[in-house]
């Protein structure tokens, strides 16, 4: 009952936004090459649907590939930084410095190394999205209350037993929170790289549409990216509820 009302609020707000956008464009007679109405953006996608889907698929899978590498790297680095003080001291400054570099500035370097196309897109998605995972996994592991570990130590447990029974479950909510951030960042990374140096993907489609002044198609591309981002975010939000619902009990009471 409460749940369906929540969904209604969420969906209603999005629909409302589009209605306001549509009305504003029509009311103020904004020309489509400045700001197309959402209906025009969607309309522009339809005649080239097959091609658009190809580009969307390219963006989706490069994003997911980069995200996958980011999860693996992020968990390993986060575990290293979160459990070992020397590694924490050694790696954190490097990681922070690296994360401060604008990833768009790295794309030309990646293109130099790997050529135009898919590989730089995957790598950019990876580079932009792994940092929040590292930070959250490290924070989660470092935040394990010592008393909880003590419960097991008193029983003569091995370090591994204590790690799997206390540290991992305790830091899982932190990990899932970071996944939701990372997946949307991964889209940003992939699209940046496609815009700069690719002949495939929604990013490329948007640049070529833009060079032909096909502004509605540019916005159509933006809408598609947003849609894919929401879908994957929702997927991870559902997984989070399923797997670490215990951490969010106050919202269910």
């Amino acid at each position: 009952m409460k749940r369906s009302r929540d969904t209604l609020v969420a969906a209603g707000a999005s629909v409302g936004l589009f209605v306001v956008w549509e009305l504003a464009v029509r009311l103020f007679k904004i020309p489509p090459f400045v700001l197309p109405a959402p209906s025009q953006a969607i309309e522009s996608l339809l005649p080239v649907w097959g091609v658009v889907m190809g580009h969307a698929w390219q963006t989706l899978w490069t994003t997911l590939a980069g995200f996958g590498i980011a999860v693996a790297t992020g968990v390993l680095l986060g575990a290293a930084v979160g459990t070992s003080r020397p590694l924490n001291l050694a790696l954190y400054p490097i990681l922070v410095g690296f994360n401060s570099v604008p990833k768009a500035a790295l794309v030309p370097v990646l293109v130099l190394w790997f050529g135009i196309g898919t590989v730089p897109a995957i790598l950019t998605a990876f580079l932009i999205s792994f940092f929040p995972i590292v930070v959250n996994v490290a924070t989660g592991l470092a935040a394990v209350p010592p008393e909880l570990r003590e419960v097991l130590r008193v029983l003569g447990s091995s370090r591994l037993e204590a790690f799997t029974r206390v540290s991992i479950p305790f830091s899982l909510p932190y990990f899932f929170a970071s996944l939701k951030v990372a997946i949307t960042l991964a889209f940003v990374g992939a699209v940046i790289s496609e815009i700069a140096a690719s002949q495939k993907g929604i990013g490329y489609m948007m640049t070529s549409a833009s060079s032909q002044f096909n502004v509605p198609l540019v916005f159509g591309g933006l809408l598609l990216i947003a849609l894919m981002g929401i879908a994957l975010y929702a997927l991870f939000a559902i997984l989070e509820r399923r797997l670490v619902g215990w951490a969010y009990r106050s919202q269910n009471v």
Partner: protein
Amino acid sequence: MSFIELSNVSLRYDNGYLAVEGVNLSIAQGEFVALVGPSGCGKSTLLRVISGLRPPSTGSATVHGQVVRGPVASIGMAFQNPTLMPWRTVLQNILLPLEVCAQHKRQYRQNPKPYIEAARELMASVGLSGFENAQVWELSGGMQQRASLCRALIHQPEILLLDEPFSALDAFTREELWQAMQVLYMSRKPTVILVTHDLREAVYLSDTIYTMSTRPGKIAYSRKVEFPRPRPLELTYSDDFAHIVRELREQIGGMRTPISGLKGVGA
């Protein structure tokens, strides 16, 4: 030789602070001992030495004639906080020690049924029946502490170390838990060391009470309590009981200043 023996135990922390000094203590098997004293007198530190969580700086602790050099087999411990894992149900929390405790883990993995049965019985004896599959946060503080006691006992430890397990509870719940504790003690007869600063609690539950002085912690006084078990709660209102509490209170000090001599009272 006694079951648990502390000889000349001192413990100095890394920052140079001497927590306990020259503690000698012998505890018989099945004895219920209370360590009482003001905050910061090193009561909890002594528990950590006995449990093997911390080695003493000088002196030694022996259990069963064996010098303690690391976490001792067959110890159950309950803390001031219930320290239950919120990602496990109450029953899963209680069964946790069986997953890691060397004597039980293989047998538990092969055939968990009798252990689950034992956990249910344990839960029933402290009034937790029906909460097996409840989530931790659905339990009140007192119920969580009951579950924590069950967890400390599920692997049938010979020694039960209680580090102020009742001190965070309200007065009524605390008295209920004293009774639950007494039931558990009488049915299993473990050797219990209870750290507390509640004198009534110490007198109600234990056979022997040691008071500790502060900074550095030393054993200052010991007192036997001879009331037969089961001890009814009304006992705590009797004159004999009050007499012992008063005697201990005077030993710990702080009663030397008469009330009329206090300044700034009544603010």
